[in-house]
Every structure is written in structure tokens, then in C-alpha cells.
């Protein structure tokens, strides 16, 4: 279970005063469930993702965030990853000179080492990579290229999900994974994501549009505005948002 309790967080913009972005955010995502977070641009969705993943510059000023009893806020980003957190980035980073396969294998073995597990063997890794690439219709050549360098927006998103399937995390945060994907790609990626739905895993799907949620069906939908959850409901809430807009929800909430 992911449990966020009255989370307040600020972002330190270059030398400026820290700017409060999350203002008392509370949320629970039990394992086995998929929750969606929707909210207008600038409402703090990515900030929430970064805060949970431990990005420098995003500081929690009060509140708690724990996953399966671990206080996440006390851990380094890599320790959170080893505990099973995966963030699919809204804007994945390019790393010249490091082939995708090398990167993923290094990441996988680093996580295993942190958990006291043995390294994955080269043949096992290759087999898993081939199977995963097939699920996501990723060309084997792409995995030999430097990570994200020269990839289209859609290819980058697909590669995020490739890494996610390879690493088999227990807590997944997908930050606008749908942006940059056409409808066919979206279906393929959603299919991949759905293979990870399991009683032992929790997922937080951040999105702008209801469209993604037709393919990754959430158990709960939360609306984020002004750094807080202003409304929560079942999948029908996403449809209502699509039809009525954020302002209507905001007014209803206040």
C-alpha cells in the first residue's frame, strides 16, 4: 500500500524562494489497485511523481509518504527504486554512448545487488529483453542504440515501459505516458502495462486525458488541483471530467 498523508512539498527554482506546489495531499493506493491522477497543467502531477521518486530540489516540508511500511522520504532515489518504485518519466532523458541494453542491465543488477539478490545471467537477460521487446513491438536494433538518443517522443515512452516491464517494479508511477503516443502505440503500451497488474503491485497513472484510461482501467480516479486531491471517485469520474471540465469539479468540490 502506498500511503501519502498531508504531503506538503516545495520546488527550489534556481536561487529563488522555494515555491510550495503540493499543499496537503493525501492518498492511499492499496497493492493490487490502479489509481489514476488527473489534473490541469501545472497542478503538481509531475511534482508528486518527483517527490515520490526523491528528486533533488523537490523538498517535502511536512507530511508522510510510505510504501509497504517503508518511509520513502528517508530513502535515496536508488534505494526507493530497489524497493520497487518505478517512475515512467514524462520527459525521458537521453544518455549518449550508453546502449539501452547496457543501461537496463546495469540498472537491473544494481537493484538486485541492493536487495541482496544475485545478478541476472547474460542469457536470461537477453531472453527477457527479447520477450519484452516483442510484447511492446520494439525493434531489437532500437535496444542497441544509445538510450533515447534520437528517439521520437513515442519511442521514448515505449522505452520507458520496456524498462518498467524489465525491472518488474512493485509501485509504478506513469507520468503522462500517453502523450506522444498515437492510438495504435497507446494500445500496445497499455497492453504491456496491464501485464504488470497483480495483487502484489500498485500503480499510479497520471494523465491529462481520459483516453488512456480506456485501456488501463483504473480502480479509482483522483483529481489534483492546486496541489491537493479535490475529488476522488470511480472510473466514471474521468468521464465526468472529460465532459464537464476541471472547473465544474473544482466548483463542486469547494
Amino acid at each position, binding site marked *: 500500500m502506498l500511503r501519502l498523508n498531508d504531503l506538503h512539498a516545495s520546488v527550489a527554482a534556481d536561487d529563488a524562494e522555494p515555491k510550495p506546489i503540493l499543499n496537503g495531499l493525501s492518498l492511499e493506493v492499496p497493492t493490487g489497485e490502479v489509481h489514476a491522477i488527473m489534473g490541469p497543467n501545472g497542478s503538481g502531477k509531475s511534482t508528486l511523481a518527483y517527490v515520490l*521518486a*526523491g528528486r*533533488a530540489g523537490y523538498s517535502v516540508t511536512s507530511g508522510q509518504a510510505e510504501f509497504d511500511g517503508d518511509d520513502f522520504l528517508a530513502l*535515496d*532515489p*536508488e534505494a526507493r527504486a530497489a524497493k520497487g518504485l518505478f*517512475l515512467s518519466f514524462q520527459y*525521458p532523458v537521453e544518455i549518449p554512448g550508453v546502449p539501452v541494453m547496457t543501461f537496463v542491465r546495469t*540498472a537491473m543488477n544494481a537493484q538486485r545487488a541492493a536487495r541482496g539478490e544475485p545478478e541476472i545471467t547474460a542469457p536470461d537477460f537477453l531472453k527477457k529483453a527479447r520477450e519484452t521487446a516483442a510484447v511492446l513491438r520494439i525493434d531489437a536494433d532500437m535496444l542497441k542504440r544509445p538510450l533515447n538518443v534520437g528517439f521520437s517522443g513515442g519511442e521514448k515512452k515505449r522505452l520507458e515501459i520496456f524498462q518498467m516491464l524489465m525491472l518488474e517494479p512493485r509501485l509504478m508511477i506513469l507520468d503522462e505516458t500517453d502523450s506522444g503516443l498515437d492510438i495504435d502505440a497507446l494500445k500496445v503500451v497499455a497492453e504491456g502495462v496491464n501485464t504488470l497488474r497483480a495483487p502484489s503491485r500498485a500503480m499510479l497513472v497520471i494523465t491529462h486525458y481520459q483516453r488512456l484510461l480506456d485501456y488501463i482501467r483504473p480502480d479509482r480516479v483522483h483529481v489534483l488541483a492546486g496541489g491537493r486531491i479535490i475529488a476522488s471517485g470511480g472510473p466514471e469520474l474521468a468521464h465526468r471530467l472529460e465532459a464537464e471540465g476541471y472547473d465544474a469539479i473544482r466548483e463542486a468540490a469547494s
Partner: protein
Amino acid sequence: MTAARPAEIFAARYAALPSDPRRARAWEAFSARGLPSRRHEGWRWTDVAAALDRQARLAPPEAHEVQSLADPFEALGGGVFRFTGDRFTPPRSRPAGVLWRERADAPALNGAEATPLAALAVALSSGPASVEIEVAASPVEPLRLVFDDQGGVMHRHVLVMVREGVELDVLETHLGRVTSNVVVEYIVEDGARLSRSIIQSANDRAVQAAHANIWLARAAALNQACVATGALLSRIETRLVHRSGGSHARMNAVYLVRSGRHCDLTSHVRHDAEGCTTEQLVKGAARAGGKGVFQGKFHVTRSAQKTDAKMTHHALLLDDGAEVNAKPELEIYADDVACAHGNTCGSLDPAALFYCRQRGLPEAVAVAMLTDSFLREALSGAPPSAEPALAAELAAWLGTGE
């Protein structure tokens, strides 16, 4: 007990050598200004006098410190010319096409006044005063020049003549244990191709200089690659002249400095003839307490029309307290040329670092991976014989740099 000043030690050594007019001229060129210090143009960030003073105040090196350096090119075999402070050892068997001659008298040094340490090396090189290597046919294996002060003081001069059309692969190892000061001159004749790979490796108390003068004749080519990890003070200087037209040079380098290390890469490229190209890419990384220096100058004379020259230097400051000083310069007197330079100094992209850590890479592993990714470009295009050893130097530094 007061240790003798380095300058006095050099003067005493000079006085003990047989007199020789060219040696005297080199000594005069050196002593006109003395040991380079921050007051001298071109040495502002590389104060040799101060470093030698500092070295003299340090306790003498422990035996293990003197011995701990190994030649990274050792496994490659080839014809080895080995130089120490007082001995020259030629290859055991003569590579086909290669001749050498030991000279008892000092060579004339071009531009001695502008290169005081090179002048000092010529003035103090003995046993022999100089070694001239002539390469008349392309050797099958690389030639290796290994300079090792072996815990003493070394001054050396070597001249390599690469005859017309010859392809020569040279691997230079500069091992700094205490003090080494080396000049290598390359005369590259028409259509000849020189690959020059350099590894500079030293301990914390070494003061080390490796100077090269290179002349490229018509349609000659140079491919130079270097990995340097610095010393108490190290200076690697290359002075290149395109002198007859149609010659090409690539001069790439990586410098890596951790705490207590200083590494200076200085180059001066003179385009003196039409239609020559120079492509230079230098990348460096510095940790806290490390100091890197890049000084690059392209001088394009009026007769060097159609010059195409590009100088690029990018440095990565890995910690607070890391220091890199850079001075790229273009001096152009011809009008029909394409010359450019780029120079940046920055830190690792925090977004990339976070991305790697989010995937589970410990911070140190992520830093090493991103630093490698940043530096690696400067080794692409390195002579194939040397590339693995150059890459291994880089990997070793990334693995051990605190």
C-alpha cells in the same frame, strides 16, 4: 638541512655536461626566463617553479609509490624504445624499416625561446643527448616510446622522422614518478601518416612535462589521441605546423583530474599552407581539488587559405571545488578560411543523474556512467591499436575516482 632549489639542481647538472654550442643555446633559451611560473605567458595556470618547490618539500617517495605505475601499452608489444633519466634501451630486434641513431651532441630546437621546458630538456638530455629514429617503411607493429623517470630526474629529447608515404603508429607512455621532462619531435614527410597515442600516468608527487613539435608536410596526416590523469603538475604540449598544404590533423584528448592532481593540455597549431584541416576535441573531467587546464591556439597565416579548423573543449566539473581553466584562441590572417571554436565548462545534468538513480543506479555508478558518456566522444576515432588501452585508462579513473 635545506634542500637545494630545483633551479640550482638543474644549473649544476648543466655545468657537469660536456660543452656543446647547441646545448648552450638551449640552456640560454631556458635561463633567459627561468622555470616557467604563473608570471609567464602560457604558464599562468601551470606554475612549474612552484610545483617543483612543493615537490622538494615533500618527503621522498616510498618505494611502493615509485614502483606502482605500469605501462598501459605493455601488452601491445611492438618495438619498444625505453628512456630513463640516464639510459636509453632500443628494441631488442630491429623493426623492419626502422633505424635509429644515438647522438652525443644536442640537437637544435626550433622555437626554444617560446618553450622553456622543452629548451631545458634539450639542455640537460644526456646518455645520449638525443635519439633520432628514422622510419623509412611502414612498420607492421606500433613503435612504442616509453618514458619513465624511475624515481629520479629525466630530461629527454627524441626525434622521429616519418619518411614519405610511411604509415606509422606510435604509442607514447609517459610515466611520472618524480620529475620527467620530455621533448619528442616528429617530422612527417609528404603523404606520410602518423598516429600518435599518448598515455600520461603519474603519482601524486610527480612533476611531468611532455612536449611535442610536429611538422606535417604536403598531404601528410596526424591522428593524435591522449588520455592524461595529471600529477602534482603535468603539462602535455603539442605544437603542430601544417607547412606545405593539404595536410590533415586530428588532435583529441581526455584529461581526468582528481584531488591533488593538475593536468594541463596545451596546443598550438600553425596553419602555414593552403587547404589544411585541423580537428581538435578535448574533453576533461575534474573532481574536487583537481585542476585541469586547456590552452588551445590556432594560428592561421596569410598564406593558409582554405584552412578548415575546428577546436572544441568541453569540461565537466564533477564536484564543488573542482577547477578547470580554459583559453581557446584563434588568430587568423587569411580571409578564405573556416575556423571555429567551442568551449564549455559545466556540471552533470541533474535530470540525467536523477533519471539513472530512479532506475536504481547508486549515485557513484550513475556519475561514472554519465561521465563516461560525456568523455567517450573524445576517444572515438583514436588509433585502433591504442583505443582499448586508452578506454581502460578512462575506466580505471572512473572506477577509482572518489
